[in-house]
């Protein structure tokens, strides 16, 4: 049984329907990468998984439980974390408080997780008392990523974690994604840097116009001439 299983998902904003039949499944411990042109519905898919949209048809199950249409507040308790594409930190809260808020649903002692996050993202340690809104784009991305790790998620949804980052920063973030995945966290990631992302993916999903147009292993998608021609820029 897959950890995440999405069947024939139809969803949209209000009455406007955007997703028209998304199928996606991820096994525990996999990295799934979603690619596709701007406006394809990649972010919308993640938001639909995270209970932020009207789901009109289809189902989402996680770890054997149906989570279709569940409210966002409750997903943290299922140990699913989401890093949105934009506005993904609390700007007036300090870096440390952002991480504490990540652990809001935890009633146990999370100080070791906090230390672990500071180890993964050393730049955050020096900035821990600075408001997150005053950080650079890359540092903010680290705060957002770290915040999501605080619940020790089973599944983490990342929406363009490398958006706006320099190539060096980008490969650093990918390294972190791989490292976190090695600790057993399943990753579902939307990426614009399709080639690099598919290279680290166990599974890839190409979305266009609100549907899957290709689903395969990351490597096969990279080698697929049709995908390369239409989505990877040759």
């Amino acid at each position, binding site marked *: 049984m897959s950890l995440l299983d999405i069947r024939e998902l139809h969803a949209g904003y209000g009455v406007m329907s955007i997703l028209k039949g998304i199928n996606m499944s991820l096994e525990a411990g996999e990295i799934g990468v979603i690619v596709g042109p701007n406006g394809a519905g990649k972010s919308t898919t993640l938001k639909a998984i*995270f209970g*932020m949209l009207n789901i009109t048809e289809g189902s989402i199950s996680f770890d054997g439980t149906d989570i279709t249409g569940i*409210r*966002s*507040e*409750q*997903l*943290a*308790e299922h140990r699913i974390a*989401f890093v*949105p594409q934009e*506005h*993904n*930190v*609390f*700007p*007036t*809260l300090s870096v440390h*408080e952002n991480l*504490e*808020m*990540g652990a*809001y*649903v935890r009633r146990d002692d999370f100080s070791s997780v906090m230390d672990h996050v500071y180890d993964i993202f050393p730049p955050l340690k020096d900035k821990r008392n600075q408001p997150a809104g005053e950080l650079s784009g890359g540092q903010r991305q680290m705060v957002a990523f770290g*915040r999501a790790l605080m*619940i020790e998620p089973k599944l983490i949804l990342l929406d363009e974690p490398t958006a706006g980052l320099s190539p060096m920063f980008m490969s650093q973030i990918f390294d972190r994604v791989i490292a976190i995945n090695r600790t057993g966290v399943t990753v579902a990631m939307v990426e614009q840097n399709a080639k690099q992302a598919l290279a680290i993916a166990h599974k890839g999903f190409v979305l266009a116009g609100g549907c899957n147009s290709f689903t395969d292993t990351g490597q096969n998608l990279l080698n697929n001439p049709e995908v390369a021609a239409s989505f990877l820029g040759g």
Partner: protein
Amino acid sequence: MNEIVFFINKGITSGLIIGSIYALGAIGVTLIFGILRFAHFAHGDMMTLGAFVTLILTAALASLGIVLPLPLAFIAMFPAMAITACLAIGLDRVFYKPLRQAGARPVVLVMASVGVTLMLQGLIRLFAGVRSRDMFIEAPKEIFRIPFPGASRPLIITEPQVLLIVFTFVAVIVLHWFLTRSRLGKAMRAVSDNPELARITGINTNHVVWATWIIGGALACAAGTLLSMDVTLKPDLSFNILLPIFAATIVGGIGQPYGAIAGGFLVGFSETLAVFNWAILLRPIKDHLWFEVPANLALVPTQYKLMVPFLILIIVLIYRPTGIFKGRVL
């Protein structure tokens, strides 16, 4: 020296008193704006409501013949704060929450709060009439006269004024502790920063909304009670203070609790200093001045006091629309 005593009594003490009232009210308004994103116009009447709850409890205590070292009304204020907090949550349940859940736009909630204002004013008049009442049921209020060196007149401060200043000071410290140290307080700031991300993070928005009404309601009750203790309790208590409280909120930066405190004192001091008769301070040195000191040299006549917050508001909106503490822009 008497002139300085006069200045402290009429300028500094008054500014501190009215500033504290504005600050206590503005904290609630700014928190409600930060969390629920609407201007709560019924806040002034929540103050009146809270003061009436205190009055009822005070009368009950007095009828039992209880005598305490502090005024009964001040003691009764604490349970009244809890009751007003519950009433605030109740008002939210009945009037605002259904609108929020239906996805109403903020302006609809503002209109609803105007409705709640009218309703509360009506209810209060219905049950309590229109006359003004004294909060000191058991004994007259105590007045402290502190001799000032070199002056024939004393510094004057009343017991409720001392209690108001002490209460405000303690409330600000507790609020600061709550917002920066407690889990729920940090969650409130998180929701105010980014409600959607707060939900994604698993923060229970309902708890945050309750906390907002509890703080807003309790402080409104305290402000209403302490103001009525300083003067008298009238059903239209809220009428003259709602505008300065909103001015304080905006001047401080909407959604910023520390801004609300700063804004409250700024508006309070501006008001008292604008109507203060500066001629009194000039009189002792009038022989050295090149001009005739007029009898009254106030910047604004007392009747036009309400103009001052308006003026500050306009200046702030033109030159620094985010307010002192960088709040939201309307």
